[in-house]
């Protein structure tokens, strides 16, 4: 503790789990927006990641609420926000935003996209798997050309609805923080937009990582055109994200409200590592410069020409650094907003506990869980578009 703080500010109320929540939600929104690139904006190069993006979004969405439930401590009461919806509370309305996104957008889009394959797998399988796939098709086994055309068209429309929904999902998370008018670190109308673009950055970086790792483990060659396109969009999203953050920063500096002194003290002391080093330097500037040089974002083929294998390593490193940077953004927003006193005269400290319901072990567990879910989803609904799956579909379709 440093300086003067009010007695009720000594202990932070929003812990590491609340850092995890916007991080995971951002990955969901980002992965979905990446999927929409192929579907709506017809970016054919990223097609190999389309289904992987959707499954990633689903796997992370299924876990997105768990940090909140663990933090609040009474998961058995969570259904009440659906039973007695409170329209005056932004937090209470999250349940509906979440349900809309899960049920109307993500599941339906995945269903339409996979229906043809699920019918093929149903016809090709035996025993439990056969019934599983039949249940997943909801009994709709018509794969005539007309039916498939409808699937495609419906999928496209759902993606079009899905883009504003993804914006709503993550913009909402930023809104929750941005609307806390008593907290000068949070209170900003730019917050939902900054959250949204950082979500897009993190989602693209995650899918890029997953695409490279899964391709590696499947002993398949990496599609460099796809990877370059992903890196290109990652670069553009990062440019917008960084510009918005700097705009927010400059705006605060120029406004120089009474809180500016304690906030600058906080940045120079408590948040130096997580904000200056991890978020800005390692998580933004280095990937930005590297992607600017190596990706086709500014020049076809990139400014620096290297062998594809080396380029893959560069992209991999950038994606990892960006993930660290985005997690740091969430940390700096959530924890930073509670480190300074509302008296603007002192700073407190936050020590992460290891065990316990809000500890590091729980956070790591919840961070690992989406990957387990994704592994199961990939087993049930293989997203690969290479010959192996294609041949199976063709043989049975």
């Amino acid at each position, binding site marked *: 503790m440093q300086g003067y703080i009010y007695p009720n500010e000594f202990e932070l109320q929003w812990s590491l789990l609340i850092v995890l929540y916007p991080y995971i939600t951002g990955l969901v929104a980002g992965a979905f927006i990446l999927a929409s690139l192929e579907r709506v904006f017809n970016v054919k190069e990223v097609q190999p990641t389309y289904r992987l993006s959707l499954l990633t979004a689903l796997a992370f969405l299924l876990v997105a609420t768990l940090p909140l439930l663990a933090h609040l401590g009474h998961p058995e009461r969570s259904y009440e926000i*659906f*039973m*007695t919806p409170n329209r*005056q509370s932004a937090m209470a309305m999250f349940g509906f935003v979440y349900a809309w996104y899960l*049920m109307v957008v993500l599941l339906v889009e995945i269903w339409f996209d996979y*229906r043809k394959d699920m019918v093929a797998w149903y016809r090709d399988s035996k025993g439990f798997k056969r019934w599983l796939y039949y249940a997943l098709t*909801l009994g709709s086994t*018509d794969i005539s050309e007309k*039916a498939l055309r409808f*699937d495609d068209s419906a999928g496209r429309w759902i993606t079009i609805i899905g883009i504003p929904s993804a914006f709503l999902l993550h913009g909402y998370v930023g809104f929750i923080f941005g609307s806390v008018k008593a907290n000068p670190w949070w209170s900003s109308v730019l917050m939902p937009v900054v959250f949204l673009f950082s979500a897009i950055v993190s989602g693209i970086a995650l899918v890029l990582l997953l695409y490279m790792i899964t391709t590696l483990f499947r002993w398949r060659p990496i599609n460099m055109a796809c990877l370059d396109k992903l890196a290109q969009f990652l670069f553009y999203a990062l440019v917008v994200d960084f510009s918005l953050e700097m705009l927010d920063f400059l705006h605060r500096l120029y406004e120089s409200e009474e809180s500016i002194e304690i906030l600058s003290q906080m940045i120079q002391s408590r948040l130096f590592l997580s904000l200056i080093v991890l978020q800005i330097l390692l998580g933004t500037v280095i990937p930005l410069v590297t992607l600017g040089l190596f990706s086709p974002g500014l020049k076809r083929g990139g400014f620096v020409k290297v062998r594809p294998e080396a380029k893959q390593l560069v992209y991999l490193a950038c994606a990892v650094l960006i993930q660290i940077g985005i997690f740091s953004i969430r940390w700096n927003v959530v924890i930073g907003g509670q480190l300074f006193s509302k008296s603007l005269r002192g700073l407190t400290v936050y020590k992460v506990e290891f065990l316990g319901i809000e500890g590091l072990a729980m956070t790591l567990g919840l961070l690992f869980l989406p990957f387990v879910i994704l592994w199961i989803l990939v087993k049930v609904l293989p997203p690969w578009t290479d010959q192996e799956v294609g041949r199976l579909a063709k043989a049975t379709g």
Partner: protein
Amino acid sequence: MPEQVPRLLAVFLTASVALVIARSLLVPDTFGDIGHYRAAATDSVVAHQKKYAGHQECALCHGQIQEMRLAGNHRGVRCEVCHGPAANHVSNPLEVKPPAPQDREFCTLCHEYNASRPTGFPQIDPADHNPHVPCIACHEPHAPEPPGMPGDCSACHGQIARQKAVSHHSAVPCTTCHQTPDEHKVNPRSVRPSKPTERDFCGACHAQERLAGIPQIDLTAHNPAYLCWQCHYPHYPGTS
């Protein structure tokens, strides 16, 4: 209509019907009648067994103490704050006696020094202030007054006093630097002690070569535009 549509609609319809049924079963009947809560909750609260009697009930038997309290500094502290819920005592005064806390820890819940408490609110440092003596040995709890005016500045300014006690200025009494009218002890906010306004005041010790062991400076050359305490914290000198 393509067959996918009715299948999907069936799923959503089932989910919607399930939600409606769940709502009709789980949402209490009176929910929302008054506000965003179960209106009958107020009846449930009323039905709870009464534990507190209210200070008016106490006054019926303990009128003298009540008068004393209402005229004193604890006029805002109701009887049951210290003596606990007294409904049982009121209904059975001879057999059920409310507790009368005598521990120092009880009084220090409100009166221990805490920087967030308003200036002028009586606060003590229990480690320094007559340790081991029960508070009620000196202070009448129903109409507490300090036994006299605070004899020592540390009674209210404990944090400064403790810091000064371990500083180079430990031997310098507060009143050497602060001219403190007696009225300050009664109205600490409206009548404030003075602070040194001249550099020569500190120079009396720190610009005299004859005082060995005390840091000496040349008042004319050492940042003449500033008062000494603008750079040197006088309660813990040596820091700036």
